[in-house]
């Protein structure tokens, strides 16, 4: 329960911090921390224009996508505090809920019959597919390491500094999850939410035709997705012995650092050429495989 609250609170300011960081590093004042919230409130108040080409799929997709992300949030624990709906192998459900969100948004994009949205949909499908092996290999490796297969149990024993966890594995795992978070949230270097060009975007171009409440819902979903991964990263750092207030501080601290990292990355580098993206994502899988072998060595399982 506490995890869900943390995710919702982080979702409120996460994008704000990313943008604040970017503003700071771009030499400008920039929008306020809660500009994102203002934007959503405005959208919830607005009417909508719906394409005559589109169907119920287009209208329903943001709702399903939102619920899928919401359900994914219920799987994430907060340190030793269990998640709302923990069960064995919920890692699988987590990945598939994100896939569900992707599936319906792709269909909604194709529903409009616009070439740009088709383009975004196509890219989203491919990159989403390519990123999954890395996710599963990392969490499989962590399962080997801890002997647990649900997020709740996994993080109740695993955190930086817990016995037997080498710093290397944590660092690599955090790196991979960070990159997955960036890809899933359509940020640099795969996608750029700020370019505003139909031909180069992935996620943003898929929602070109959504308006009003539905668009607001999509924006809420994407901030929650960020917070979701933020908490996932934070869980690596939540030591069970610490008091709750300290854990909260750590969790928010990790999220703030995460957001600032995203902002910094987006300030200092350019995005990839589109055709380089698959290669980039596959590199991530090889890092995941590296983690897997490190874990095997660490648990004395590697017999050659």
């Amino acid at each position, binding site marked *: 329960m506490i995890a869900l609250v943390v995710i919702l609170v982080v979702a409120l300011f996460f994008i704000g911090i990313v943008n604040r960081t970017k503003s700071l590093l771009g030499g400008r004042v920039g929008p306020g921390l809660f500009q994102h919230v203002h934007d959503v409130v405005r959208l919830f108040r607005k009417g909508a224009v719906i394409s005559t080409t589109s169907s119920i799929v287009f209208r329903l997709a943001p709702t399903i996508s939102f619920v899928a992300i919401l359900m994914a949030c219920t799987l994430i624990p907060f340190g030793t505090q269990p998640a709302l709906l923990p069960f064995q192998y919920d890692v699988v459900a987590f990945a598939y809920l994100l896939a569900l969100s992707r599936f319906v948004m792709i269909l909604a994009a194709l529903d409009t019959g616009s070439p740009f949205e088709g383009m975004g949909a196509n890219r989203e499908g491919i990159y989403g597919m390519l990123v999954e092996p890395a996710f599963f290999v990392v969490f499989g490796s962590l399962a080997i390491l801890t002997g647990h297969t649900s997020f709740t149990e996994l993080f109740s024993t695993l955190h930086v500094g817990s016995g037997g966890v080498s710093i290397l594995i944590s660092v690599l795992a955090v790196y991979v999850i960070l990159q997955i978070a960036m890809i899933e949230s359509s940020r640099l270097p795969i996608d750029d939410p700020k370019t505003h060009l139909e*031909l180069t975007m992935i996620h943003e171009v898929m929602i070109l035709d959504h308006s009003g409440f539905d668009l607001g819902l999509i924006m809420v979903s994407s901030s929650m997705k960020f917070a979701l991964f933020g908490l996932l990263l934070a869980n690596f750092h939540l030591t069970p012995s610490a008091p709750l207030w300290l854990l909260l501080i750590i969790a928010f601290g990790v999220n703030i650092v995460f957001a600032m990292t995203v902002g910094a990355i987006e300030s200092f580098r350019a995005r990839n*050429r589109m055709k380089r993206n698959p290669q980039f994502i596959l590199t991530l899988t090889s890092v995941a495989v590296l983690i897997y072998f490190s874990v095997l060595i660490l648990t004395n399982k590697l017999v050659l």
Partner: protein
Amino acid sequence: MITIHHLPLAVRLDEIPVVSVEEAFACINQYLRVGQSRHVFHMVALPHTDGHRVITVLADDHTHSVSLTSCIVRTGNPVPSLTPSNAQMHIFERDLWERYGLEFTDHPWCKPVRFPVDSFHRKGIDDYPFFRLEGGESHEVGVGPIHAGVIEPGHFRFQCTGEDVVHLEIKLGYQHRDVEGELERARTLQRRSVLAESIAGDTTIGHAWAHAMAIEVLTEQQCDPITEHERVIALELERMAIHVGDLGALSLDVAWQLGSSYFGALRTPLINFFQLWCGNRFGKGLIRPGRNRFPLDEERRKAMRLMLAQFEKKFTLLANEMFSLPSVVARFEGTGVVTHDQVAAIGAVGMSARMSGLGRDIRRSHPHGSYRALDHVSVIEHGGDVLARAAVRRREVDASMRRIRIVLNELSEMSGSDAPTVPSTFTPNTLAISAVEAWRGEVVHVAVTDQDGQIQAYRIKDPSMHNWFALALAVRNNEISDFPICNKSFDLSYCGHDL
């Protein structure tokens, strides 16, 4: 064919030879066969008793000369097209076809250019025959007229197979507001000047200067050297401002925030200097026939030197970073290549030619004003890709900065004389041509007066007329997601093309 050295020029209409269509076309073919040093400047049609008198203006970069020939094309009497042998003629012939209904028997691509209000064919803007891939397996992407960013309208039609672009066709005309017609109808110098400044807001100085020169030559007035020097500064400052802005825009399109922010910030002092100088950030209101309205006095020269010094430091730092950042260079390198042969074939001008090794530069080939005394060296790159275009911009900023400093120093040792009064009627039955190397390339203005000394035809050629085709070629066989940086690297004018 009549050949004249030095621009701007004024020539009496009856001095331009009138030959048969076949002879004229053979003559043009002959002229252009010499090679890349020659290209077509403009093609103007004037109404004639039983058709149109088509005057072709050709330029030779080596001999610094311009040649004119003309022929009478009768209405409803198809003539052979020059395009199959010289691709660069296509846009002018299409213009004649669209505007006056002149028919060409073998033009391979006779399609509307800008859907003008006085079009012969009266076609609506949504009636355009796009090139298509048959078979229903490839798809098209249509972008525009309203683009994602705050930019001008134009429609791009891509023939795609997945992420790859097979062919791009560009349909323009949305910005058409009949500037040429308004210039012909205008009766005061003020109105003409403001209209000329509104041809393309990003080339205010270039067009205003070309217009002023055309009027000056039609009224046989000379500007004093100070005025000419100040115009050089204005033109180079405009070049710098746009190039810096475009480097920022290129950074934005590859999502490099640092570049987009700080190049954007670096453009500000440049255009703010215009604001300090003439009260407008784009230099509107500065250049008038025969004079500049706002002097570049000692105080402003000092401010400019200071501004340039600060600018240079930051610009060098940022540009070095841009051209050494792997993620940026990886996006630019090899993207949107237009080869030297292609550039030469389509008659590209200005920086769109210079990025692929074709040194076409009015400041060198047909110098005007103070450029005659300055031995100009053009910036030339050979890659033909986005990186080459970015590099041309970067190096031209540096070159312009040096040029401005030299001219500033010369200015402080010059003393002025009174500006001439420019009359509002002109030499009758005359054709005047002026050309300015604006930041995109050659801006050519052609003014033709009638027997009353009033302007009967005013024709403007923005460099974009030639160069849009280069963009179409650049995108072929590229990824569609690279189109924005290709487009931005050329940064062509929609309104200059649509007029």
